[in-house]
Structures are given as C-alpha cells and as structure tokens.
C-alpha cells in the first residue's frame, strides 16, 4: 500500500502552527516514515508550478493553517482544495480567523495608512502605498491583493475537518495525524484534536461563587492559581471555549483567550461568552450594571480574539 500523501500550507498566520508541527520532535521522523510529505513551503522550496502540476485529488490530506487575508491566500486555498482529497483547517486562523481576523475591526485603508504612513518608525516620505501592479523598466511587478475582510478557510473553500488552537497543542496534533494515517475519521465537518466540552471541564481551579463584582486585567494582579479566573474578576474565555489544550494557559496563571473556538452547540463564541459573563455580573441597578459593562475592555477583542471571522457579525461596519 502506498504511503498517504500529505501537504502543509501556511496562509495568513504567524507561523506558530508550523512550530506546533515541529514540536512533534522525533515523532516527526515516525510520521515521515508513514506518510509522504509532498508540499511544505515552510520547510522545502516549492513553486506554484510544482503544485499546479500535481494531478487533482492526488494529495490525501492537506493541513492548511492561516486565515485568508489576500488573493495569494485564496489562490493557494483553491489550488490545494483541487489537489487534495481532504482539506483540514489547521489552527485558529484557518478555523475561525484567529488574530489576523481582528483586522476586521478596521479597514484595508486604515491598515495601510497606519502601516505605511502613520507609525513613527515608517520612513515613507512619498507616502507610497502597496499597489497590486507596478510597472518598472524590467516589466510589470505584481503582489497579491490585500483584502478588506479576513475570512476563514471554510468561507473560501469547502473544508473537511478542523483542528483548532493557537496553535494546536503538540499532543493533539500527533493524535490527529495518527487518525489520518489510520483512516479513523469522524463525519465530515468535525472538529478534531479538541474536546467536546469546555475548558472548564479540564481546568483544575476551584469554582465556588459565580459572581463578578469588578473586572480586573491581567497586568493589574497576580491571580490566585487555585481559584477560577472569573471569580477573581479576570475575563477567562474558558467557559465558552472548547477544551483539549489541557488548560495550558491557566497552568501558566493566565486566563484562556478562547483560541480553541466555540463549543459544538454554539454558533457564536463571543456572543455566548458575553452572555455568560454579563449574566454573573454582581450588580442589580442599571447604573451599577452600566459601570461593570463599561469596565470590560474592548468587547470585540476580548470575546472574539480568535473567532471574529467565524462570528455572526464577522466584521465591523465601515
């Protein structure tokens, strides 16, 4: 039996997902014995033409990390979809937009202005902004078009499986790869490498008094490592976030930021967390409630840190 063919790709992301795969360490050697890695731009030099030359559906499974933020991301997504039997959205960005999708709270113009004009370290006296095409004497140069709205992989092409996390924890990655090698797969559309229950299920902190009387930010305090973050006033996305990571952030005494995305019965992770959090506000009068609500920093950034592209609203109005 021929070894299954596997591919990895990196779109709009930080590269952490690639590191997550390296984290497999020596296990990676075992993997490479079981599979043929036919495409992995982070490791080997590949040209588009190499990929284009492959017959359709010749790759058994592609792990695609990163969100879709420019035309190159999109092109690669479409190409890999054509060439792959199974396409896996790997990591929070591909799954739900991730950090790049926070760009959806602003616009392309604002991003360009900020990046190419306003930042103090920018040296751009002519105020040149990126152009998709530019004529130089050697000929025409092109760069990909930067999109106004960041999308998830499945908002661009059909996706078979999801592996959430920023990045997915090594242990889960290895399990997922084993699953593919063994061909032991759940129905299409499933989330792999994560739990069916929220992070609270695996969090060891004690939960006693579900009430929040003030909001505290992480830099303002050193949390009690035994007590639930929420009960200390620190917004922890754990209740609305899939477990499976092993509560690693909480072990480091930091609250969950929500990278594993919404729970199976939940459509919109941020909306649900907002509801849960507000429900346990320890305030009865409108003024007190308003005060507490006003003290929640940056609601979109807090509740949709990793899932804005996947949320119901997807982006802000321009």
């Amino acid at each position, binding site marked *: 039996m021929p070894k299954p063919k596997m591919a990895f790709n990196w779109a709009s992301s930080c590269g952490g997902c690639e590191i997550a795969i390296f984290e497999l360490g020596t296990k990676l050697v075992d993997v490479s014995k079981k599979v043929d890695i036919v495409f992995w731009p982070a490791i080997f030099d590949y040209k588009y033409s190499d990929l284009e030359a492959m017959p359709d559906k010749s790759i058994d499974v592609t792990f695609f990390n990163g969100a879709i933020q420019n035309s190159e991301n999109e092109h690669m997504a479409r190409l890999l979809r054509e060439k792959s039997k199974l396409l896996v959205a790997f990591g929070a960005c591909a799954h739900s937009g991730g950090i790049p999708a926070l760009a959806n709270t602003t616009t392309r113009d604002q991003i360009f202005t900020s990046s190419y004009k306003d930042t103090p370290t920018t040296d751009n006296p002519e105020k040149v902004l990126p152009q998709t095409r530019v004529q130089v004497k050697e000929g025409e140069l092109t760069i990909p078009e930067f999109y106004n709205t960041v999308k998830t992989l499945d908002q661009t092409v059909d996706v078979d499986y999801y592996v959430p996390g920023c990045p997915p924890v090594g242990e889960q990655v290895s399990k997922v790869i084993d699953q593919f090698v063994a061909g032991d797969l759940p129905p299409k559309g499933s989330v792999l490498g994560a739990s069916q229950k929220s992070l609270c*299920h695996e969090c060891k902190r004690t939960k006693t008094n579900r009430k929040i009387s003030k909001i505290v930010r992480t830099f303002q305090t050193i949390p009690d490592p035994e007590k639930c973050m929420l009960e200390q006033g620190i917004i922890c996305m754990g209740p609305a976030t899939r477990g499976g990571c092993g509560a690693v952030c909480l072990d480091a005494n930091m609250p969950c930021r929500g990278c594993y995305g919404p729970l199976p019965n939940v459509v919109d992770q941020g909306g649900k967390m907002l509801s849960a959090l507000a429900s346990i506000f320890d305030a009865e009068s409108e003024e007190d409630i308003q005060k507490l609500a006003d003290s929640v920093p940056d609601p979109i950034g807090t509740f949709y840190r990793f899932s804005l592209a996947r949320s119901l609203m997807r982006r802000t109005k321009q």
Partner: protein
Amino acid sequence: MVEKIGVYICHCGTNIARTVDCKAVAGYALGLPNVVVARDYLYTCSDPGQEMIKNDIRESGLTRVVVASCSPLMHETTFRRAVADAGLNPFLFQMANIREQCSWISENRELATTRAKAIVGAAVMRVEFNEPLEVQKVPMNPNVLIVGGGIAGIEAALQIADSGKRVYLVEKEPTIGGYMARFDKTFPTLDCAACILTPKMVSVGQHPNIELLSYSDVTDFSGYVGNFTARIRRRPRYVDEEKCTGCGQCEQKCPLSVLSEFDCGLGKRKAIYRPFPQAVPSTPVIDREHCLFFTKGVCRVCEKFCPRGAINFEQKERFIDVQVGSAIIATGFDLFDASRVKEYGYGKFPNVITSLEFERLTHASGPTVGKIVLKNGRTPESVAVVHCVGSRDNNYNEYCSRVCCMYSLKIAHLVREKTDAKVYEFYIDMRAAGKGYEEFYKRLLREDVTFSRGRVAEITDVAQNSSENGKLIVVAEDTLLSIVKRIPVDMVILSVGLEARRDALQVAHIFRISRSKDGFFLEKHPKLAPVSTAGDGIFIAGSCQGPKDIPDSVAQGAAAAANVLSLIDRKEVELEPTIALIDEDSCSGCKICIGLCPYNAISFDEPSGHAVITGALCKGCGVCVAACPSGAIEQQNFTNRQLTAEVEAICA
C-alpha cells in the same frame, strides 16, 4: 422524515380579513418548505374550523400544524386540544398571532399583509423544530390561602370552607370586616351594614375549616400552582388568642385613650383595644406605639385585671409557613387622600369631611352615636356633598370610582332623614347603573335634595356678602344653567374615590401579579377571566382589581372561590412543559448557571461534574439557557433552534 405542515389562516370574520389579504397569505404559506396544506377560513376556532384541521391531520397525515389567527393567549389551548384530538402531540402545533399584533394595529392592507406573511413564515419555520412534549401532572394541594378579610375575602373563605376545604385567611388589621364594617347603611336598600356583615364575620371566626390569621401579612409566596408555600408574619398582639375570652375588662381598665383609626380619628379608643365591639377575632390588641408599659415601662393594668392571664408583653413577631395549592388575593383599596385637592380645603376647614368620616358620624355605634353634627357640636343646617373627589380628574385618577354616586345619594338620604338640613349634591354625571340604583336616585330626587350638575371649583371661607359669613362656600358651575353658583353651607362631605392600596406594588411582587395603569391588580382577561391572574392558581377578588361596590365584591369573592374549587376538584394540575433541561454530555460544569435561577432549581452534582435542573422547580424563564456558554441547556418549546428559525424567517 420530511414534515408535513398544515397552515390555517383565519379571517376572524372581518377582524383579520379587513386589513390582511388572507388568501394571499395562505398562498404564500403553501409556497413555504414542507407546507402541504394551506387554507384560509372564516372562523378557524369554530367547530367546523377545528374539524377541518382534524380532518387534514387524519387524511393528509399532517405532522405539524400552524394556525394564524388571534393571540395565543386567546386560543392556543383551543387549538392544542383540537390537534391532540386528532392524535397529534399538542406541542407540534404553533400559533401565529396575526390579529392583535397585525390586523388590528394597521390600516394599510399592503403592509399588514406583508407583516402577516412574516409572522406566518416565522411560525412555519419554527414548527419544523417543535418537538412532542408531555405535560407533567402534579397533585393539587386542596388548601387555600386568602389574603384580605374584607367582604370579598370573607365571602370566598366561607364558600371554600363550606365545601370542606381548608382556608388560611390572612388579615393585616386586628379584625376582619374591612371597610364594610365601618359603614352605616348600604345603598340602595339601606339595610344596615353591620346587620348583614357581622353574621358572616362570626361564621368565619367559628368555622372549623378556616384558620383566621389576623394582624398578620404574607411576606413570601413561592412554588407553583398546586404547591405553593406562603410565609406569614404574625405580628404580636401581646394578648394570647387562646386564653382571651374577649370579656373587655382590659379595655375598660386601660388608662390611656388615643384617637381611633377605625373612627377616622373622630372618636377614641384605648391603648389595648378592639377596633369595634363586634370585631372578629374578639381578642384585643395592644398598641405598642402608645401603651404606657411599652413607652414608659409602667402600668400593666390590663395584665392585672385580665381574669384569664391572657396578657403577654413578651410576645414576639413570628413567621409561619403554610402549604396551599391556590390563593385568592382580596386586599381591597385605599381611599383617595382628600387633602391632595387643595382647593377643597380638607384638613384646613374642620367641617369639610370625607364620606368615610360621615359614615362614622352617622353610625349608631360611632363617636357621636349616630348624630350628624358639626365640629362645634351643632347640627348642620345645610350640607353639600361633592362627588368625584380624586376621580374622573386628570390631576389625580382618570377612572370613575363607581361607588361614589350611589353612596353620595345614601349620604343625602341619611342627612335628610336625621336632620332638617338642606342638602346639595354636586355631581358631574349621575352614575346609577345597578339593580335598584336608578330607582334609588329617583327616590332621592323626591326627597327634596338639590342636585347641581358640574364639578366643584373650590370650597372657600372667603365670604363675599353677609349671607356667606361664617359659612363654607361651595363654588361650582351649574352646567345645566350655565351659571357659577356660590352655595354657603355648614358642612361639606367629600365623596372620595377608591385607589389601589399603597402596598399594592409590594403585594404584586410577592404574588407576581401584574398591575394595570391605575395600580390595581390586573386580571387575566377583562371579560372572560375577571378573577384570574396571569399566574396559574392565583386569583383576585374585590376592589384590589378596581373599584367595586359590595354586591360586585361579594360576586367576585364567590367567583374566585368557584375557580379555586374547580381547580381543587381536578385533583391534579398540569405544568407547562416549557422547562429547561441540561444535556449532561455537553455540560462542562462551568457553574455559570447555578446562581442565576431565582427558584434554586439548578444544583451541581459534584460526582458527575455537571449541573442538574429539578424539573418541578423550574418555571421556564430561560435565563439559564441564554447564559449557558456551552449551549448545554435547552428550554423545551423555546429551543435555540426554534427561536433561531423564527429569527431567520423574519429576516429572510
């Protein structure tokens, strides 16, 4: 399985059809997914209308039914029953309200029809996700709580107790009897209030099935229909009800007299007192505010003279819990505070009095032993009766207090009967709707009473001529003559209106009753369910629902009793299955929901690590469902899928 949905668009005669194109809506419905039957019909709630639905279920094999007609508050039960008759689970039925919130609010046929389509569309999309539900039955506790011992509460208590059921009658005052006990005669028959009321009060006091809890109030009321728990505060009387025989020795010997509330401050009572001689229970109460022992630490005369050793200064407030299956709230009314109408000078002119003060004056056992006298002891030579004080007045209460016209006529009659005084009645309209009422008005017209139509502008002591000197001058336009009259009189009686009690809001909160705009308790339906409330098993009777005279209050007391008895006789009550359920496989034990339930229905099961809902305690508000960050809690018949389907249909 693909659902087969039947949709029925009701014309409701012309109520809906006038502004909604029912045919078009039915046509639209037929185009919706899985709709196999869509019909419009003149009166869907009629027998043939219901038959039509049943037939379609049987013959076309409908698995879901939508009726678009009136509000579900009106006919949801009717159609659920019809659907169940045809063998379909009643919760597979969905009602779409295209009357109260569609056809009746618009005159634009095009817009109303569009709106009706949206409403029907939402119901059709939702009904897809409706699930068959079983109605839970729980035993009905036959005990009944009645709050308020006025005539309405007394009537209800006796009716229920006579049928062999146990009644807890809670009264705030030291005695039952309410306002009626303070009246002299009653209109239009002029029979004496005490003669008809006191026998009933005595029956209440002696009835083996009635536990009378006077000088007490309800502080908490929890549970659900069939199984309520009422917490009752028993204020200390400082007299042992068991030992006291009601001999009255203590009252006679008590050295301290204070103004009597029962007599509107016109007479005196002792610091240990019964509000009036026929009080039930006959046990007196010590007024802690004034009693010399409580204020100065000396006296104890009552204790010394009590032949039974019933005085107990050590008595403390205590709370008792009683279990009941239903409750009747008959807390009555407050009188309008006449001093609010400054131009009538109540509180400034001693001889301007309220109608209740007049009742006490003319009452045979009142402070003047029934003599109608001025503050200086003289008999008045002229008396004015001013109607609608605080009623039918945008500055105070917009509504008509209903009883004032008739009691004002009674006052006029009593003044004429007992004195030679000239009597003037100032009225806006004479409202004499009731059996024998118009006849009573006619009788008064013949009793030489002067009627002047028009609202009184002011009552003043500023005289303009010698005939007005030393008199109270009633200034009013006579709208029949179109002149302003100035009538000098000796005494003015203000016919004050009835208002919701000052503690009505508190009572409403305890029993979770809504109130209408004017502050009175809101009935479930103004015509068809006048003594029911939105809360199952909780009924209202008498003037706490709105101003009422004695016959109406008695009728409501009896009606509430009948409602309660019918409930008790069913032995079981059905609970709405719209409760919340936790999917244990999805619950991650984050405990967000635990503290949110006002009924403590959610607990945490430590061994299994997930939350548990006790179905019987859940009232189905859905607060926990909206809060659950795992989406592990669902509310039956209000699932996320059902509500989202409605949202999607409306926004489509």
